[in-house]
């Protein structure tokens, strides 16, 4: 299958799953007994947050592959995944703040460990770009960026498990080791939304990676023709 066909497939899957998932979430899934209609933010906020974790994890995995094999192509793949992770991380913070405002009456609260740990994770990976562009392009930059991306991976489970470890009252815990704490309709709508956001991230990743590769090839071509 050609790359453009695969990209189109991802884009179509993302569009279909997102439209279907959002329609199910808004019009089919029952309203939460406690939070009412505002709980519908869950279907966009949680999939975006999980996608951000997935992107950071994928970026760290590519970084590990770079350090393991020494193949330069993993550097661009790791960088692109982290780029996507930062975008989805920012969206998590924004949608989370909107949900916090309607549920708790505050845009942000420093008392919630999961929020603060997610912010730390987001800032850590935002700083990745500063590190990356402070070093001249080449194997040294690739290695340093990969080591940094791998360090960040340690924060992912800490951030994800923080709410369970902390046992906080404000931030709800939906998924526990006993399973999903949701009725079937809500869980189905959530799973479709999650698949849609993951497909969207995969599409953006592939488009961004293709753009960066074309950019690099053109730079090389320009040097050859100079």
């Amino acid at each position: 299958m050609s790359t453009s066909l695969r990209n189109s497939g991802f884009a179509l899957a993302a569009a279909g799953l997102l439209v279907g998932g959002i329609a199910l979430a808004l019009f089919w899934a029952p309203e939460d007994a406690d939070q009412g209609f505002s709980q519908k933010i869950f279907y966009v906020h949680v999939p975006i947050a999980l996608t951000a974790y997935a992107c950071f994890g994928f970026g760290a995995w590519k970084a590990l592959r770079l350090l393991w094999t020494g193949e330069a192509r993993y550097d661009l793949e790791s960088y692109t995944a982290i780029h996507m992770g930062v975008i989805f991380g920012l969206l998590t913070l924004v949608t989370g703040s909107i949900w916090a405002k309607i549920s708790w009456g505050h845009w942000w609260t420093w008392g919630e460990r999961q929020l603060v740990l997610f912010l730390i994770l987001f800032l850590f990976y935002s700083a990745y770009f500063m590190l990356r562009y402070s070093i001249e392009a080449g194997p040294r930059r690739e290695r340093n960026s990969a080591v940094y991306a791998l360090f960040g991976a340690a924060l992912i489970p800490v951030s994800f498990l923080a709410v369970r470890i902390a046992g906080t009252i404000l931030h709800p815990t939906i998924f526990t080791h006993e399973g999903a704490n949701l009725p079937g309709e809500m869980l189905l709508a959530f799973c479709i939304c999650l698949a849609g956001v993951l497909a969207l991230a995969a599409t953006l990743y592939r488009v961004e990676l293709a753009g960066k590769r074309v950019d690099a090839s053109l730079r090389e071509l320009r040097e050859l023709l100079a």
Partner: protein
Amino acid sequence: MTTAEKYVTAAYLVLLGAVLVYLVIIALKVARLEEEVSDLIRLARERRGG
């Protein structure tokens, strides 16, 4: 529209807005790449001609 509906709409619009902004960025990038390719073709033709 209730307050809850306004907040839910805002959250969903954030995602839609992000996708649209990304689309604009990609469109600008494609336009820049197109320009660069044209430049390189011109450069290659000049070198071939010279």
